[in-house]
């Protein structure tokens, strides 16, 4: 297919990887970024642009922000095994609707992604969907059972970008030690779902006042913090690259902050719900508020917000976790954890971070582009000349109301129905081709 030229005109181009923030035209040729052309500061004039590429498609981006394609490094696609909840194709459709041009998917499928054949399968399905880039994260242990190492070397050769047993953490210290030693050979990060199973027990929400009142077993904050503490020591000993998934407690953020100050190679991410909601939302046993890690307390939320602002928290993710309505419609204790998030991520993060003035757009975009690209070792998240033309265009002013009946995801499990949000993705471009347009 001959990819024609694409010119995105008049938007506010923000590319943190190059320190660009200003109104400019973005010129795409042959699926790659050709130039960021400031109308006032040299470069090709608009008229010259029109003349040089008469058949070029044009997108009017006035009033919009134009940035490198957003990257979500924590997504659950339910294929293989639970295709009624989500497929790779439907997950990608949800992703591009949310402005994401690249996603990394977790291996807790059925069967899990713990060998090279499964890694290849994900790449194959993503190619068939032909929407956004999908990067498989392989399991650390065979079957995610936490006992024997999975064939990580072969998975790296097949294209796995990182390793995680997400859904649960690697509980055994010796297994984690061996895993960190072994993965160190390949330079890929280990992403840990930090939850000590002994401390978490049968907990289904944050251990605190609300859990006590509701009579539900709780997961204490230390369940997350103990595992981070232990992992940081092992990471320092082995020199491994370590990433804490979905951080949620003030103590955890502080541990990571201190570790970074000591030069340990640790990174972390946070989800929108841990920046906006607290345990008090779980008033009516509504499972749309059940996720893992659970919603915590306001001081925890504040600490996470501060962490994003000061860079302790490197990137923003959704932990998009589709579940069928029937699965979620049972008692709170038994229901599966997780909510979707791809299609509203950007405005939710804007509400949490931009609206109160905690970060500006360049910082927020950096946390969703350059940072995840760097952590996963991807040559993405940038608009420099020659880069793949993955671009997100969004209108930061547009307001809209979340309507769960119009989702592209196969699942609708989330608490955002009816929320009035500000900020909407208008176009998502992957390799120079428009994959999503907001009509």
């Amino acid at each position: 297919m001959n990819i024609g030229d694409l010119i995105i005109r008049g938007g506010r181009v923000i590319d943190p990887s190059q320190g660009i923030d200003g109104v400019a035209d973005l010129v795409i040729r042959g699926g790659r970024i050709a130039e960021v052309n400031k109308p006032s500061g040299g470069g090709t004039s608009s008229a010259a642009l029109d003349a040089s590429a008469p058949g070029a498609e044009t997108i009017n981006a006035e009033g919009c922000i134009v940035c490198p394609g957003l990257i979500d490094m924590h997504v659950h696609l339910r294929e293989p095994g639970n295709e009624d909840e989500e497929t790779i194709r439907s997950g990608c459709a949800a992703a591009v609707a949310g402005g994401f041009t690249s996603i990394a998917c977790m291996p807790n499928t059925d069967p899990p992604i713990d060998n090279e054949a499964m890694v290849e399968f994900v790449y194959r399905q993503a190619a068939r969907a032909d929407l956004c880039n999908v990067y498989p994260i392989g399991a650390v242990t065979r079957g995610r059972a936490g006992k024997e190492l999975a064939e990580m070397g072969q998975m790296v050769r097949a294209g796995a970008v990182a390793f995680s047993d997400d859904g649960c953490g690697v509980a055994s210290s010796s297994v984690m030690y061996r895993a960190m030693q072994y993965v160190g050979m390949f330079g890929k990060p280990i992403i840990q779902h930090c939850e000590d199973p002994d401390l978490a027990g049968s907990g289904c929400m944050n251990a605190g006042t609300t859990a006590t009142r509701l009579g539900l077993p709780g997961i204490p904050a230390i369940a997350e913090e103990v595992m981070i503490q232990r992992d940081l020591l092992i990471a320092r000993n082995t020199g491994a690259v370590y990433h804490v998934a979905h951080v949620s407690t003030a103590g955890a953020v502080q541990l990571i902050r201190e570790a970074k100050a000591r030069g340990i190679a640790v990174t972390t991410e946070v989800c929108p719900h841990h920046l906006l909601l607290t345990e008090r939302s779980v008033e009516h046993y509504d499972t749309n508020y059940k996720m893992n890690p659970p919603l915590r307390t306001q001081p925890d939320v504040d600490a996470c917000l501060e962490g994003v602002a000061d860079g302790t928290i490197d990137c923003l993710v959704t932990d998009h976790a589709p579940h069928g309505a029937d699965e979620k419609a049972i008692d709170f204790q038994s229901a599966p954890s997780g909510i979707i998030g791809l299609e509203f991520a950007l405005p939710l993060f804007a509400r949490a971070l931009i609206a109160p003035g905690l970060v500006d757009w360049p910082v927020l975009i950096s946390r969703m582009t350059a940072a995840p690209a760097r952590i996963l070792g991807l040559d993405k998240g940038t608009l420099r000349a020659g880069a793949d033309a993955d671009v997100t265009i969004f209108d930061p002013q547009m307001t809209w109301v979340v309507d769960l009946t119009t989702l592209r995801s196969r699942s609708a499990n989330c608490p955002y129905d009816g929320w009035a949000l500000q900020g909407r993705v208008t176009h998502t471009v992957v390799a120079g081709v428009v994959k999503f347009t907001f009509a």
Partner: protein
Amino acid sequence: MKRAADRAERVGPPLAPAKGGKGEPMTWSHRNLLGLEELSAEEITLILDTAKAFEDVSTRSVKKVPALRGRVVVNLFFEDSTRTRTSFTLAAQRLSADVIEFAAGTSSINKGESFWDTARNIEAMGVDIIVCRHSVAGASSLVARNVRCSVINAGDGCHEHPTQGLLDIYTIRKAKGRLEGLKVAIVGDVANSRVARSNLHGLLKLGVEVTFVGPTTLVPAAFTELGARVCHDFDSEIGQFDVINMLRVQRERVSSNVFPSLREYSRLFGLTDERMQRARPDVLVMHPGPINRGVEMSGAVADGRKSAILQQVTNGLAVRMAVMFLCKQAADAG
């Protein structure tokens, strides 16, 4: 004990004396051989030269010399071994010694007491050389401290296997004509290998560059403190090695999570036919045996013309004859 008969007869082919520190002829003064770490370069060279002299014995029609006639050698093996045990037995017989195979039960050396009793009891029968193999590091030293006869370490846990190290070095020297300046790779479960350790000590002293190759879980960086280079990407460095010595990978290791599967180990570190294409055309391939065909190396590589595996076994006889000869000589003198 010196005997007139020994002095009168030729005890073996004339030896070319190695030179000691000040140009003096090097003499071997140790009644035991417990490891290569404590030996000097000259002492190791003396053993190799002595082995060369004994090599000729194996080509004669009567493959015996009377060097150890009337002496008793005991194979005190607390760990299974057919290969090393047979080699020592044959070497002792070629030196005309009487050989006793001590069938050790499963008595635990960890208790210390029974082991020391065992060794002392054996010595009391009038034994000249104890060849000792055990699964615990330091076992041979423990025996040596408690007997007056010679003790030769045939492998003590993960610590040393000096005669294996010597026969490996001998094989390299014979095939390449020299040792100084060679680059030798030892590949596999180095962390648990006494063969790797003995090779390392011996080779370094003789001016060889040693690289340990394997996954980070089996080749920890700590080995650099002992003088080895460490490499976890076999493909990136294979083209520079003059010698590649492959160690056996134990199936049981998978459960201790040092690598996920034999398949993955072999894909990353196995000496496959493809990987051999990237090695030097004159590379020497070695393995202490026994081989897991298809895991450490393909059958074709093991049987190919670059493989010195069978020469290692042959050379092992000459080396063990030399070691027993020298130790007995030192014990008699001391």
